[in-house]
């Protein structure tokens, strides 16, 4: 707990210093960075300590606020969720200073202040063990990230995005307010422990509590259709802030859901089904929308929706296992969910940092203006490639490990005689297969269009590799991707504690059950070893051949056309077109297609732009309708004083008559 307090105070200090030192941009950048990194490092150490020893640390104090008490507690679950927060915060802190190089004093001061506040608030949310404290930290988190989103507030689109974001956050908070006030009223205390105890003898309330939690936290996590804020907010924030938000903040939503689940005791079967359904929806729609994007960061944001879906699938399987009394299924389901939380924060952070590097080098994230960057930014390109392969779930990287666990759980479920479980397992298998394929397509497009081929714009062709600290922070994450991929058995085994807290079983039995899946993983890793060996062999072979035989550069095959130009390359829209037309019903692509005409066709083009149906079919119409209806209220206040007097008289007479009866 000591480390935690130190880290929070360091983060706060960093924010304050940044504000105080704003006249000197360099100084305040330095202060912000040092405090962010050191503070997060402290916090990380503390969290790891809890994870290793496995016993919770807590701190309670007096808090002068009725209906609340000051109670921080870091148990294994909290510690686990602190890892991505502090870990990513270290990396982004490293990254941020060079990313902000050249910004004015006020801008960088504000950004560092809010960045540190965001980290501190997230950490407090995770550590808070009291309803009111939790809400307070939760709102602070939303507010500080709001300021990060509206960082570039001169653009109208950014302002609109920030509005959308805070509205969504507040919508979620409304549900959470009801949730915690309700729990507080039945528990006559605002302490989480008391909640758990009270829920035991209010069985009737459990389902409504679960639904409230799912809605409240789901908005923050970005489940469909409450995901609309995500693709708006993440692209416009500074890239390392996007990394922090997408990598860590939406996980806080998952944490809340999981925390409530631990309080609820043995779940109902239909909760698991609901979670799986929501997860499937979010996963598939998320990746489909991503496929249709041509702004790199929007695309990544939609992938966050997809990955939240995968996480929910895992948790759903776990809940199903608990409800049906299948411990092994539950353990593996939760394990996959938790591991994916960690993995996603790693590779999504990496990808956003990569996108930030591209932004800084080319000053654009519009896919159709990029290309050929792997030649010009080899490091960034390689790291981004690793991140892409990881998020797609390709062996031998970390993404594959968590998806392996999930599919493993799916197969386990499929083998169960009970149809309810088997079908759930089948759904998980098919959905995950589909997601995997589509994600592969999407990142083939993203990486291929951005980094491969030849540049599609002058800026892209003059791109330079980014500063060393930015590269270093990406390298750290990339190495983590590989390490977890090849150290899969260890990674899975280390989940025992946190999974045990979910299932309520002892750590011993849980790790025994995890060992069941760790062994196959070990064999899988050995297969990957062979893979790498064969690849090296083949590479050496072709290298030797080419050493003897000639290797030269020439034009690519242009079907007889001798001077292919960058303009002739495949575009992102065309790459996605087969799939987007396939799922047109779902993603509402607005296509503009000018077909070639005549024997000697001159101008012809294909471009696609995707609107989010949740936005254009659900929210926007609702808001418009509401505006129309409400505006009718005008007639009440039309300025005629006589009628105003009439209101007073009418109210009086109405009341007199009403109470005379």
């Amino acid at each position, binding site marked *: 707990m000591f480390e935690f307090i130190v880290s929070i105070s360091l983060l706060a200090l960093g924010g304050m210093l940044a504000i105080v030192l704003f006249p000197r941009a360099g100084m305040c950048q330095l202060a912000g960075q040092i405090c962010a990194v050191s503070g997060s490092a402290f916090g990380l150490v503390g969290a790891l300590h809890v994870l290793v020893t496995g016993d919770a640390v807590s701190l309670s104090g007096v808090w002068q606020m009725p209906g609340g008490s000051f109670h921080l507690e870091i148990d294994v679950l909290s510690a686990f969720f602190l890892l991505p927060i502090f870990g990513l915060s270290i990396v982004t802190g490293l990254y941020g200073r060079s990313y902000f190089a050249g910004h004015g004093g006020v801008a960088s001061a504000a950004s560092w202040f809010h960045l540190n506040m965001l980290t501190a608030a997230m950490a407090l949310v995770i550590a808070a063990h009291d309803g009111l404290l939790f809400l307070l930290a939760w709102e602070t988190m939303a507010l500080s990230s709001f300021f990060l989103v509206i960082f570039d507030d001169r653009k109208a689109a950014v302002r609109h995005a920030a509005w959308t974001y*805070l509205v969504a956050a507040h919508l979620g908070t409304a549900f959470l307010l009801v949730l915690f006030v309700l729990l507080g009223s039945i528990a006559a205390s605002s302490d989480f422990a008391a909640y758990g105890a009270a829920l035991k003898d209010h069985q009737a309330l459990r389902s409504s509590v679960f639904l409230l939690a799912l809605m409240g936290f789901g908005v923050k996590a970005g489940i469909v259709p409450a995901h609309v804020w995500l693709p708006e907010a993440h692209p416009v924030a500074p890239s390392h802030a996007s990394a922090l938000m997408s990598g860590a903040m939406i996980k806080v939503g998952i944490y809340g859901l999981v925390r409530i689940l631990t309080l609820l005791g043995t779940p109902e079967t239909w909760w698991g089904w609901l979670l799986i359904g929501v997860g499937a929806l979010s996963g598939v729609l998320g990746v489909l929308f991503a496929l249709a994007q041509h702004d790199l960061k929007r695309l990544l944001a939609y992938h966050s929706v997809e990955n939240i879906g995968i996480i929910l699938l895992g948790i759903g399987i776990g809940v199903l296992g608990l409800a049906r009394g299948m411990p092994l299924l539950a353990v593996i389901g939760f394990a996959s969910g938790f591991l994916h939380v960690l993995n996603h924060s790693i590779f999504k952070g990496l990808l956003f940092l990569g996108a930030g590097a591209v932004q800084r080098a080319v000053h654009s994230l519009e896919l159709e203006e990029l290309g050929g960057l792997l030649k010009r930014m080899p490091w960034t390109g390689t790291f981004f490639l690793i991140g892409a392969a990881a998020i797609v779930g390709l062996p031998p990287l970390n993404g594959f490990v968590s998806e392996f666990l999930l599919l493993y759980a799916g197969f386990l479920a499929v083998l169960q005689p009970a149809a309810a479980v088997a079908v759930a397992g089948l759904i998980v298998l098919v959905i995950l297969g589909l997601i995997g394929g589509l994600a592969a397509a999407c990142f083939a497009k993203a990486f291929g269009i951005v980094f491969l081929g030849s540049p599609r714009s002058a800026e892209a062709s003059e791109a330079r590799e980014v500063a060393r600290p930015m590269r270093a922070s990406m390298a750290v994450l990339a190495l983590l991707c590989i390490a977890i991929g090849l150290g899969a058995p260890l990674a899975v085994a280390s989940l025992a504690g946190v999974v045990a807290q979910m299932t309520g079983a002892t750590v011993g039995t849980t790790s025994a059950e995890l060992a069941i899946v760790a062994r196959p993983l070990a064999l899988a890793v050995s297969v990957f070893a062979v893979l790498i060996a064969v690849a090296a062999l083949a590479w050496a072979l072709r290298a030797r051949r080419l050493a003897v035989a000639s290797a030269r550069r020439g034009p690519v095959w242009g079907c007889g056309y001798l001077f292919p130009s960058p303009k002739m390359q495949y575009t992102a829209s065309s790459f996605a077109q087969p799939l987007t037309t396939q799922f047109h019903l779902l993603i509402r692509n607005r296509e503009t297609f000018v077909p070639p005409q005549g024997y000697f066709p001159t101008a012809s083009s294909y471009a696609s732009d995707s609107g989010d149906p949740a936005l254009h079919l659900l929210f926007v119409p609702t808001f418009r309708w509401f505006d129309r209806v409400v505006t009718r209220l005008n007639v009440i206040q039309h300025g005629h004083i006589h009628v105003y007097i009439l209101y007073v008289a009418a109210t009086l007479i109405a009341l007199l008559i009403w109470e005379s009866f």
Partner: protein
Amino acid sequence: MYASQSIIAVLALALSGALFCLVLPRPHHVLKTIVGVSVVELLLALNIWAAVLGPNGFVTAADQWFYIDAFSSFHIVVLTLVFALSSAFASIYFTHEAGGLVFTAAIARRFGVLWLGAEAAMLLVLMSNNLGIMWVGMEATTLLTAFLISLHPSRLSLEAMWKYLIICSIGIAFAFMGTLLAAASIQSDGGAGADALFWTKLASAEAHLDPTLMKFAFVFVLVGYGTKAGLAPIHSWLPDAHSQAPAPVSAMFSGFLLNTALYCIMRFVPLVQHAMGQDFASGLLIVFGTLSILVAAGFIVFQRDAKRLLAYHSVEHMGIITLGYALGPLGGFAALFHTLNHSVCKTLAFFAVGRLGQRYGSHEMHTITGALRADRLWGVALLISFLALIGVAPFSIFMSEYQLLRAAVGASAWLTLVLFLAASGVVFVSALRHMINMVFGTASRHDRGGRDGKLAVPIVVVAAGLLLVLGVWMPLSFYHALSSAAAVLAVRP
């Protein structure tokens, strides 16, 4: 100084200050005077508060004509605080009169007299034990503040002033009817006496109040003072008055005038509950509170003028406070807490809007953009006050609304809870959009000139600091003060 003297001193100071303003030659003399007076008033009020929170829990003066308990003393403190802030701001605001308006010495004197006079009247309302005198004070506030609205007579300000004057006079007349009925209700069983209008008498346990008359009385009082408090559907005067009055006056209006009216209503509630049980009064309060919240939420959606927007916010928050009073002791606690938060927050918001209005030459929201870049101090003030206003943590309004929700769930008033959350959601969505467009973005055409003077920063720091501190930490003494004030409403002395 003894509390009973300081009671007299508070009133005397306000009145003498008002008269003193008549003889001052220059505008800035007047402005300095009101600042000085109102600050001293604040200190005296704190002194009274401390005394009331002492052992016997109330202070009386002029044999029972003045009676101050925890409830009224809390309101007195809020009142003087709002006046101190607003006076300080007035001294900034009126030195930058824009749009061809001139703050001449004559206008300054009129302002000073009416301003301090209004403060005296409100203090009278809050301190008097006699419901009749309370009514007299209330009527006096109406008459005094009417000309503050049209300080610079113009078509619009006159229209607003006329509506305010007529509608509130009617309301106040009804309130007097209610007061008379209340007095009659104790006499109906022969218990006559010259002290029939004394609240302590009416509220005392042995007083027997006739339920029928009390019922009528409360209806008249509710509609009467409710008009002044701006409860829907009898709030029609409010947006006009707030939008046309000069910013400091608007701040004072929604910062405390409305609360004064609500205070009067709440003085009657214990009597009604004493006469005819819990439900009648709270039922009516819940209806009016919820209705106000809903109506205000609806109107906020399509406002164009920043000050009208704030006016409707006042309607909403008055509704919230009323709702709180109806929801039992915890609700009363929440309501009082909310009263302070709303007063501070709303005054700050009106300051910012007023000052920025002077910079941009209009209160139309689409002309005010990029406030942060046009005027950092007031831009930040606008940002903070709006965020607090729509209930974002870590500002104190979030906390008071949280307490309110607790009360609602405790009273298992589910429908109210849902309506409240829905309405505040609507308010959040639309008010946030307005705020973002005003505060952020590139600044539209505005006048850079005009130094704010050295009072500006302290005002903003005090108000914002209060909002922030109370949002994360409530001093124990403050907590006790609020609880005892809430207890006054439930338990009879």
